[in-house]
């Protein structure tokens, strides 16, 4: 049972979290990209278990669907075709979702007390009851994972099926994976598995095979085995050396007490945005924004490369193009 003594970190909370439970084993999910067939069973099992149903979208000319993470799609497959100089074609398929960082940037950035927690087993979970929908978790996340729901203005992401794990089971995506590409166990065991897989890939000629467990975020509880670990970016933009923005650290370490006021949050948003993206292009009082649906708040829907789709688009609407003909 996931009682409060298992919570080792809690967003925007000054009191020291409980630390005495020293014998909780850290868990990890290992995704061996070299075995992934992109079947999306994990996407479906995730939605099914978590009682989510994303919108029925459109085909944008790729296999990716939904084309981006949403508040209802906590994991998506990202497909990229990579042709090497010698004409060898690889279809690299990566399951994207929360990495459950040991040092979670989302938690560090979150201004809402208890909206983001970290359990002793390493799972980083969102407690929606406390979420204020400010979107800082997205800014704080070096992997660009959380998404705000247009329905309730709350942030959502993979929970690593904390409910299943608490009950002694594996996450839904792990269980369903047809090819053993997703595995689950203690972090220690998963690292050992990963090393074995890397050895196997190297023996098959993938000299750069390696484990993705980035140190910049203290390691992760979701790890990848990559055949080209030297170039994670090849896998639909997996960051090579992810780090939490230094500003998030600053907020947590120094300015936290001051920031515990609603006005401070506003300022903080501006600072982060300025530091990461430069001055806003649109005027602050752009009347158009008044009418924009509330769910476009929180993050930049256009930040992904072409083909990606923002949360705000009404993907449920029939595209007239197909219907008219």
């Amino acid at each position: 049972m996931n009682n409060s003594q298992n919570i080792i970190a809690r967003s925007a909370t000054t009191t020291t979290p409980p630390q005495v439970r020293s014998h909780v084993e850290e868990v990890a999910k290992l995704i061996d990209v070299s075995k992934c067939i992109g079947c999306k069973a994990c996407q479906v099992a995730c939605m099914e278990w978590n009682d989510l149903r994303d919108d029925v979208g459109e085909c944008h000319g790729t296999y990716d669907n939904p084309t981006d993470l949403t508040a209802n799609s906590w994991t998506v497959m990202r497909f990229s075709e990579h042709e090497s100089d010698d004409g060898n074609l690889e279809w690299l398929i990566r399951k994207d979702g929360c990495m459950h960082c040991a040092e979670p940037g989302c938690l560090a950035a979150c201004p809402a007390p208890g909206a983001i927690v970290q359990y002793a087993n390493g799972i980083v979970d969102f407690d929606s009851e406390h979420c204020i929908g400010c979107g800082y978790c997205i800014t704080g996340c070096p992997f660009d994972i959380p998404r705000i729901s247009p329905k309730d203005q709350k942030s959502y992401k993979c929970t690593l099926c904390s409910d299943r794990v608490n009950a002694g089971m594996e996450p839904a995506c792990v269980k369903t994976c047809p090819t053993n590409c997703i595995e689950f166990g203690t972090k220690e065991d998963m690292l050992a598995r990963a090393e074995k897989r890397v050895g196997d890939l190297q023996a098959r000629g993938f000299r750069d095979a390696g484990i993705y467990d980035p140190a910049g975020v203290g390691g992760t509880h979701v790890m990848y085995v990559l055949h080209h670990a030297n170039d994670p970016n090849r896998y639909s933009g997996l960051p090579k050396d992810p780090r939490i923005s230094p500003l998030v650290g600053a907020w947590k370490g120094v300015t936290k007490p001051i920031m515990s006021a609603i006005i401070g949050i506003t300022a903080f948003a501006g600072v982060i945005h300025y530091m990461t993206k430069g001055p806003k292009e649109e005027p602050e009082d752009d009347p158009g924004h008044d009418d924009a649906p509330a769910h476009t708040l929180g993050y930049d829907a256009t930040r992904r490369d072409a083909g990606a789709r923002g949360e705000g688009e009404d993907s449920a609407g029939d595209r007239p193009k197909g219907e008219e003909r």
Partner: protein
Amino acid sequence: MTNHWVDIRNANLIIVMGGNAAEAHPVGFRWVTEAIEHNNAELITIDPRFTRTSAVAQDRAFIRTGTDIAFLGGLISYLIETDQIQREYVLHYTDAALIVRDGYGFEDGLFSGYDEATRSYDKQSWMYEMGDDGFVRRDESLEDPRCVYQLLRAHYARYTPETVSSITGIPVETIQRIWRKIAATAVPDRTMTFCYALGWTQHSIGSQIVRVAAMVQLLLGNMGMPGGGVNALRGHSNIQGLTDLGLLSQLLPGYLTLANAKEQDYAAYIDKRTKQPTVEGQVSYWKNYEKFHVSLMKSWFGSAATERNQWCFDWLPKLERPLYDVLDTFERMSKGELNGYFCQGFNPLASFPDRAKITRALSSLKYLVVMDPLNTETSEFWKHYGEYNDVDSSAIDTEVFRLPTCCFAEDEGSIVNSARWLQWHWAAAPPPGDARPDIRIMAELFLRLKRLYQEEGGVFPEPILNLTWDYDIADEPRPSELAREYNGRALEDLVDDEGNITRRAGEQLSGFGELTADGRTAAGCWIFTGCWTEDGNQMARRDNSDPYGTGNTLGWAWAWPANRRILYNRASADVQGRPWGANKAFIWWDSEQGQWTGADVPDFPTTSPPSQGQMPFIMQPEGVGHLFAGQSMVDGPFPEHYEPFESPVPQNLLHPGNSRARANPAARIFDDDREALGKPEDFPHAATTYRLTEHFHFWTKHARLNAVVQPEQFVEIGEALAEEIGVAAGDWVKVSSNRGFIRAVAVVTKRLRPMQIGDRQVHHVGIPLHWGFTGVAKKGYLVNALTPFVGDANTQTPEYKSFTVRVEKA
């Protein structure tokens, strides 16, 4: 499957060809990934496309659709000419040494005996030569020019790497590299498995593609071996079961066959099917045909079936045409020759070729009955859905009944997976509204008809009035009652040679070895006998232990025949009964016990010692595997490459001068449909249809979860073609054939590349098939608007995998 899903992990090399296992059978494919990781195996895909299976393959070749026989025929020649065959296996376990009659020949693309008027072969010359002793002549040296081995060698000598390359579009070096890897499994301790699906069967040469693969496996000694075999990865959850139960126009349960109109005499009907050994001492198990047939008749007609009335032989319908397959039926329907039609869980408007013809045909019916859990397109073929179903309801006079049925979750019973496992399942919930199980609907319909015949009389009521129907609740037989019936029981006490009672009247039979031809046993499907015995329901067993570590779980469910998991497994041992390789030990002769033993139920008489010389292929009269299909195929004893009926290539490069041998000369095509074929100049792109992993046919577009992950219809084209027609990823394209068109989003990919075929460049177009005008996914076009009404010569399976289209920007 000759083998089974878990057994794939025992393979050293896995060839996925004519299928896309990772997408269509992802969980079965797990055993491919297991073999790669734990058996150091290699996976090779040979496909027109770079699929999601290719994504995790170690090697791959891109083959022009419909040219698989060229690739595999060339492989046969390579294996023979480089002497990379499993010689001992080939000599003893195949017909390589058997002599073929003098009249057999092959000239310019046609086998001996061809009759152009009927588009069929007289197979008289395709026979082994019989010796004076009444058995087939053989030549152990394999040097007689009339022995199968030499005929085979000569037949495929034409398939040089260069010729194969020019037909298939695969570069010569790739062809040779993959042939080398396959040839390396000719040794006793390495096996290769073929995993195929409809990418092999949905061609006008489909059956022969499967056969050429089987021939390769015989030459390599990979049949009957763990990690070997030719494995059909079947498409539907119980398509194996419905095939086994004979729900096909010419079959009866258990692969028994209906008589044709000429077979008026019962004894001759039985005699023709009772295969006696043609090589001395062989098992030839079909010699028991009459036991199976009479037991079926007793099961259906009970005491009404007697020796005197020849077990009601005349009550069974006889075939007047060669086949009443679906192409034939829809051809007749389109000409107004049918009045009624039933679609039980089948969506022909979406599933049969040339959708316009299907609409015409259904519109000519007086009544159509659809039994389905879902709102299918077929049930609404009369309803206007814009361009997706452009019909005028008022002009269609068909009366359509739609009956809601249970789905799996509300249903109890067994289904047979691709590995021939009969697995029992239980209902979890009642069906929605008034939906009913199929069993109940069939029972009620039958009982109503029977009552009408009792009350009114009518034409030939005998089989209706006498059909056994001793179920506790007449209009709702329980699945357990039906399962016990097809398993079979003793009608009278059975006794052995000494007169001891071996089975009491009324008891369930434990195996088909107990069946008799004298009416003392009843069994509705002899190959299933053993599934529900006096020990209860064997299909519900759940012991998953694997005592030999071979992945063979004999205590899980029940497999036909006789709970065997690998067919022909006697061939996993050498002539002396020893495993070919220690790492491939599966079944062996235990001389102390005096019986065959091992990880599986032997597919062989258990106590027949190796010294007796009985050979592993016990269903064949010769006891051996057939490299030469004298009688089983209608379009040639050796597979030959023919072009698809619609091909971007104007000639068969093997027979450029003979237009009769361009496409399969014995394949099914009707005159009107020939007229509807497109010409390469109008429709230059090679098209192929297929499934995607996110969807199951036309079912899952009704399931929100699946609609989310693959919402909208698309077609795949390569970058070069996209550039040629000015299309970018995400644009809409129109795809047309000579029969119709669809519109879809373009997925532009590096995974489809142009191929050089002779003097021309061929582009492939990939057409996933899952969308339609009902369901929660985005509406789409039924892709069978495009496909030709052409069928394989042996099975009449339509040629969905190779036809031609034109793609243009919409």
